[in-house]
């Protein structure tokens, strides 16, 4: 700061001095209150308003209020206007330590400026004494009606200056202006040439050249202004991250490369804490690219990146993020889920939690889409979420597998059918039903022998036996046993339907025997078995099923006859359909 002549010294009148004393007391009280309480607190607001009122009253009779700053006191026109015994904690010291000698408020100071001034003082007073710099802070605030004087000798005291003006630059005018300047012949020649050409029309080249020095035109000024504005719109965090990643990409020294990674790790943690997932996601994406590029080319760097990713995985703050998401502290859900997708496996559990406990439908559906995307990429990884003890996660995983229909999910669903949790098993069976693939059918077939009736029944409902005569034969054999009749009606129906859906001649023949199964006394078990066989023949639907149905319509019990006729009618009313639908 440049010089400021000494203020007019002299005794102020008692009334003015008293007013200034009051202003300064209120100023210190205001800062104390602002340090203690948050911005909107009534006590801080009260003092702030009081300070503004006192200043306004002062400016009714004066153009400026200038105070001199001592270590622990403010002076007004040479008189102590405020003093604090505790030097280091005093307000004057806050200004004094940074070299400020005078501070003045000028008439015209408005509310915004006062607020800004107080906020600046508060901010600096909260910092460690050797960190904050009130002069720097006020200078940067650029308040129009606050003036201060901090002479440059403060700065000179902080820098080792050998000579304020080095001796070789101490000019002696008597030497400077003595002697002659004799132009070199080449310069003289050039001079004459220029003098001659000055009389000539200016060459086009010179005109073009001069045009490039012309003042900026309107369009250029607008471009310049928009460039400045554009620069202001760049978020410093993004700029910093972009640059750091570029640096990481070009850095050839391993120890520096590692250092940058370590720095990025801290940066990442800070971003997560601030719930800034845009940059966190960007960082992981670009490090992923670097990882692919260094792989094979620079093993040490590749290992460092791998370690970095492992660290990230291990320190993934799943619980904190879940809490933040559930408390709706994460504003940018899109970036959040993009980040989770970049994190990958460690974020799966969080994703599953959010499907179940997300704070709103948007988050829940985004979480589900995240898991689906993860499942498409790596079903095996997703399946790790499915555990016997975690039926809710298992349900979600099964749902995802059912939706993505990736054959790689079949054995994983098969594993779930082996869980103890029956609901999980049943859901897995239902999901497997959606897969026409042979491996899925094999799993379902194996479940037909399960100990649990519900499992067997659901497996039978789900299984498609087409093209697998051995399994059909096994099923027929199983259904032929005496105890088959003792099974529940649902299981029997499911088994017979499964046989019928196989569409084989062998199945049709067996179902015919079941539909016409003789009995001395028509018990419920027999009746429902016969009727289930008729339904299964209808499900068969092929030419081989027609004759058995016709036979049943002629020879069966009353109910079987009726059911068979109805089935035949339905089959006839859908000509050709049977052929198309045959498995």
């Amino acid at each position, binding site marked *: 700061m440049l*010089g400021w002549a000494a203020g007019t010294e002299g005794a102020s009148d008692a009334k003015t001095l008293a007013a200034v004393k009051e202003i300064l007391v209120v100023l210190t009280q205001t800062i104390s209150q602002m340090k203690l309480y948050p911005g909107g607190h009534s006590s801080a607001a009260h003092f702030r308003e009081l300070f503004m009122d006192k200043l306004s009253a002062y400016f009714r009779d004066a153009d400026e209020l200038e105070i001199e700053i001592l270590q622990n006191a403010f002076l007004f026109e040479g008189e102590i206007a405020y003093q604090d015994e505790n030097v280091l904690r005093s307000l004057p010291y806050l200004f004094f330590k940074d070299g400020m000698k005078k501070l003045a408020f000028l008439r015209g100071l408005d509310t915004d400026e006062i607020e800004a001034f107080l906020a600046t003082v508060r901010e600096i007073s909260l910092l460690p004494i050797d960190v904050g710099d009130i002069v720097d802070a006020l200078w940067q605030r*650029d308040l129009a009606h606050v003036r201060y004087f901090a002479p440059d000798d403060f700065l000179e005291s902080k820098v080792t200056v050998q000579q304020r*003006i080095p001796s070789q*630059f101490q000019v002696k005018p008597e030497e400077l202006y003595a002697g002659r300047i004799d132009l070199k012949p080449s310069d003289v020649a050039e001079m004459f040439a220029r003098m001659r050409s000055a009389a000539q029309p200016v060459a086009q080249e010179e005109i073009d050249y001069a045009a490039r*020095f012309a003042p900026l035109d309107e369009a250029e000024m607008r471009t310049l202004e928009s460039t400045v504005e554009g620069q202001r719109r760049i978020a410093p965090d993004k*700029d910093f991250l972009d640059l750091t990643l570029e640096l990481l990409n070009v850095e*050839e020294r391993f120890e520096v490369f590692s250092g940058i990674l370590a720095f990025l790790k801290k940066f990442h943690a800070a971003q997560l804490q601030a719930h800034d997932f845009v940059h966190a996601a960007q960082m992981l994406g670009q490090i992923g690219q670097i990882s692919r590029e260094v792989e094979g080319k620079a093993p040490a760097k590749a290992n460092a990146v791998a370690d970095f990713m492992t660290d990230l995985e291990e320190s993934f703050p799943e619980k904190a993020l879940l809490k933040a998401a559930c408390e709706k502290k994460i504003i940018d859900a899109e970036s959040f889920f993009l980040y989770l997708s970049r994190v990958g496996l460690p974020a799966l559990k969080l994703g599953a939690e959010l499907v179940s406990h997300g704070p709103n439908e948007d988050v829940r559906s985004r979480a589900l889409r995240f898991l689906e995307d993860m499942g498409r990429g790596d079903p095996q990884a997703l399946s790790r979420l499915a555990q016997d003890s975690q039926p809710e996660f298992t349900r979600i995983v099964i749902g995802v597998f059912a939706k993505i229909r990736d054959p790689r999910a079949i054995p994983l669903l098969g594993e779930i059918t082996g869980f103890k949790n029956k609901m999980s098993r049943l859901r897995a069976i239902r999901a497997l039903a959606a897969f026409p693939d042979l491996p899925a059918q094999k799993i379902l077939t194996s479940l037909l022998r399960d100990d649990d009736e519900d499992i067997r029944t659901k497996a039978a409902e789900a299984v498609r036996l087409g093209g697998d005569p051995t399994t059909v034969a096994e099923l027929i054999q199983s259904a032929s046993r005496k105890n088959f009749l003792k099974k529940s009606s649902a299981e029997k129906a499911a088994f017979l339907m499964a046989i019928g859906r196989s569409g084989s001649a062998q199945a049709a023949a067996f179902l015919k025997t079941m539909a016409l199964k003789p009995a001395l006394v028509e018990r419920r078990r027999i009746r429902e078995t016969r009727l289930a066989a008729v339904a299964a023949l209808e499900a068969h639907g092929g030419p081989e099923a027609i004759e058995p149905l016709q036979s049943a319509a002629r020879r069966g019990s009353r109910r079987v006859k009726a059911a068979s006729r109805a089935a035949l009618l339905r089959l006839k009313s859908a000509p050709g359909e049977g052929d198309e639908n045959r498995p």
Partner: protein
Amino acid sequence: MSQDDQKSAVSAREAMGVFVNFHVAYRQARVYEQNNVQFQERIRLLFDTFQKILQTGEEVQIRIVQDSVFLNQIRLKFNFSNFHVYLFILEEFKNWRIGAASFLPGLTEVEMQSFIIFLSKKLLPQSNSFERLAEDLQAAAFAHIRLEKIPAAEEVKLVGQNAVPMYFLGIYHLKEIFDARHGVLNLHITKRWIQSIVNLLALDESILFGMTTIKNFEDYTLNHSVNVCVLALSLGRRLGLSRRELIELGISACLHDVGKFEIPNEIVDKPGKLTSDERALMELHPQRGAARLLQTRTAQDMPVSAFVVAFEHHLTPSLGGYPKYHWRRETSLFSRIVKIVDYYDAITTKRVYRPKTFTPEEALRLMVDLSGKEFDPILLKAFINMIGVYPIGSLVVLDNCEIGVVIQPNANAAFVKRPKVKLISDTRGNKLDGGIVDLVEPSGTANGFKRSILMSLDPDQYDIHVYDYLLSQAQPGAAGRAKPEGKPSAVRPTAP
């Protein structure tokens, strides 16, 4: 609507209109006769804007507070398009020691016109400028115009007395910073130093511009970094950057070459051509610099732009140059600024590997040829508008054969070739402590100027340190501006 707008009957935009019209009328009054049509039109425009305010019962007051210009209580924010207006008003007011000029209700157009002519044509006395102006003003009986002297608190010491030691302090400070190597960078001091430089630039750019003609003091990179900082800050001010942005730009400029300290001295200072390996190593300095800034302990307090500029200052607008970007698609504004001033300062500096330097004029010609390819063309133009075609420190021969040193660019970009020149020799080559001549001074003939620059000279060829002349201007008692110029003659030189 901003707080400022609510304070007065006049909006910030209208206030800016007042300043622009005032500036143009003032300049026209110097050149044209009172009955000139353009001048009359401008006076009318200015009076209309004055009237709008005066009719509300308010006075129109132009006030200078430190480096700010106020209209009533509105502080004017200047940008590139009107920065010259700001400089002009600030300089005129400070020269006359005017703190405020008030135009009161009842002002007539004739009175206002007469006042502008009176002030613009008046010669600045060597001392007591305000008192003498006030006496004359009283005699001229301007009833509705009141001037206030700049308050004692606003009086500053001669800028040069602060600027010169502050310039060297910057070099010493950077030395401490760079010597700290991987230790703590004390950016508090850097910030305070930058503040001082910005304050000094606001008061008088020319002295600091002149200081940038000092090269290779202590260490090339240190001296160069300070020069780059000064020039970048000056350009940044013209672009309307806020103080916070200027601090960031200043730090970035100071540290842009920090990576050179990571390259062996025998390569950095190698006389002659570098081998391809050495060149490759040298070209690592931007990324080494950025990495070093990242590693230093104050990285968290370091403005992001410092990393960016250290990394980007050898990249072209189309991302040519080095190092190469993988993801980013453009360079930052600060990098583009630093690239221009870095290049300019570098090629005008003598180095072991570059014994022949470019004169400032030659340097700008070269840079103009590279405009668009190497430099942002609009920023380069803005830079040239700022320093002039003959930048401060140019040793020039005038068309009357006098020799001088350019000491101040013309604030008006329309006159980039017409700076103020300190005469150092007469027409016969005899050295003299000549006056300062303003090359926009008309000759009295139609469209003619009293003096023009014929060509620039290479000071090294004449063993002249132009900074000596500039430093002498900054010394106590060398205000210079008021010194009567040497009388030009028509004598032509003869070849030695």
